[in-house]
């Protein structure tokens, strides 16, 4: 049974967010909002500022101004480890699998931040490959397995909002399909997901809404049922 998004509850609201790496001004006033239980994508070209938006939510960029509310709480002054403890699970683009840790050590590294996370058994049921290779060095896994591990790692923590950065990049179609199934399962559990995705065909059937990011701004918001009507607009933004 699928839970529908809770339109009353704002899990994430970003207003007027600017972010800088050293001298470069990357985000130029991002405004977006995500309801509890929604799956929202950030679409756009490479370098548009989608990954930086996720990093900025985690307070992992150099300097930020504006406002980021998580569960109604202002987080601009919070350190990254405090933000994670608000129930945010971040899966970076580079996956961040630790080579000095075994698969199981990687899996159990992030501390539990909320109750209601998946148990190790549930995770191994969802990702049987990881169970088979649980004593291998984390980076000895294939690219697809490493991506599974990076996802699985934040499911154990009980985080109820996942920030996923390019999880399908460079993976074989069969793995991408598996990741799609995982995302549907997580959505059905009521998790909120913000997905930065290059592969529009992967994201389109999963998402409730799409934001199009260009030059560090949100230039378009498209809900799932407007998608066919606005396809040509989207194509022009994404350059496909």
């Amino acid at each position, binding site marked *: 049974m699928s839970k529908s998004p809770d339109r009353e509850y704002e899990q994430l609201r970003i207003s007027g967010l600017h972010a800088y790496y050293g001298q470069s001004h990357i985000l130029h006033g991002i405004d977006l909002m995500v309801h509890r239980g929604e799956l929202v994508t950030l679409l756009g070209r490479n370098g548009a500022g989608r990954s930086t938006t996720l990093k900025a939510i985690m307070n992992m960029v150099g300097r930020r101004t504006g406002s980021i509310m998580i569960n109604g709480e202002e987080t601009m002054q919070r350190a990254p480890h405090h*933000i*994670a403890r608000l129930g945010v699970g971040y899966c970076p683009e580079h996956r*961040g699998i*630790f080579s000095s840790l075994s698969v199981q050590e990687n899996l159990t590294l*992030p501390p539990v931040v909320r109750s209601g996370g998946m148990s190790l058994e549930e995770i191994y049921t969802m990702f049987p490959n990881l169970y088979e290779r649980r004593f291998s060095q984390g980076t000895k896994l294939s690219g697809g397995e490493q991506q599974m591990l990076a996802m699985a790692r934040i499911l154990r923590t009980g985080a109820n909002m996942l920030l996923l950065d390019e999880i399908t990049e460079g993976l074989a179609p069969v793995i991408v399909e598996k990741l799609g199934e995982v995302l549907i399962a997580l959505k059905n559990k009521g998790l909120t997901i913000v997905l930065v995705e290059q592969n529009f065909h992967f994201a389109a059937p999963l998402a409730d809404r799409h934001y199009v990011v260009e030059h560090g701004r949100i230039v378009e918001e498209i809900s799932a049922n407007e998608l066919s009507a606005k396809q040509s607009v989207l194509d022009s933004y994404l350059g496909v």
Partner: protein
Amino acid sequence: MTMIFGVPLAVLSGQLLIGIINGAFYALLSLGLAVIFGLLKIINFAHGAMYMLGAMGTVLMFDYLGVNYWVALFLAPLLVGTLGVAIEYFLLRRIAGQDHIYSLLLTFGVALIISGVLVNWFGVSGLRYSMPDMFKGGVNLGFMFLPYYRAWVIVAALLVCFATWFIIEKTKLGSYLRAGTEDSQLMQGFGINVPLLISLTYGFGVALAAFAGVLAAPIYSVTPVMGAATLITVFAVVVIGGMGSIGGAIITGILMGVIEGLTKTFYPPASSAVIFLVMVLVLMFRPSGLFGKEA
């Protein structure tokens, strides 16, 4: 008398013993440097001063407060570790992420201040620390005389090295340290209090140096400048072993002590240079160190 390569066995084994003991100190000190470098990415030039503080602290706590050796063995590392946490929190944290040269200069400055203040109070002539009674004397092994205290130093250093290795490689806390060494920002993004972990790691690293200092107090000359000379050799050991390798730091430390001891037996003039010679060779043929990961 038994001779080996023209050297009496008793002399050879005596030098070997000294080598192993020096090596045990190198291992403890380079282990602390490696732990600190791993997570903080700084080269801790204050390490020699922390070693000296452990030894001076042991002597002074005994002279002024009557604190005995066994209490000092715990208390001195605890106090120096606390000082380390304070140094990290109030000083090193301010320059985190800057070029290596800043932390190098800062820790070097801290070391100069600490030893300068102590020189001002106590001068540079050695302070005397009497051996705990239970360690007086030794045992004749037939081929050599083994003083009890020297045996204890080797056992204690190896135990602490092994415990440190075990904590880092085999425990949950250690997995935080290993992961933090690779990507501390992501660790913090998972909800781990990395700033606290960094403070405690620095404190732990310098506490290891202080522990070495306590062990050294009864057998080495205890002066405010004892750390500076030792540190140079320890840096060479760390370069040979490869920065950031825990097991490598331990093994290289002991190995270099032994090589130094053997050189002292067979060709004494080279004994103070041999470690640096090894360092040059390692840098030429394996620049990332014997146990270092290829960059």
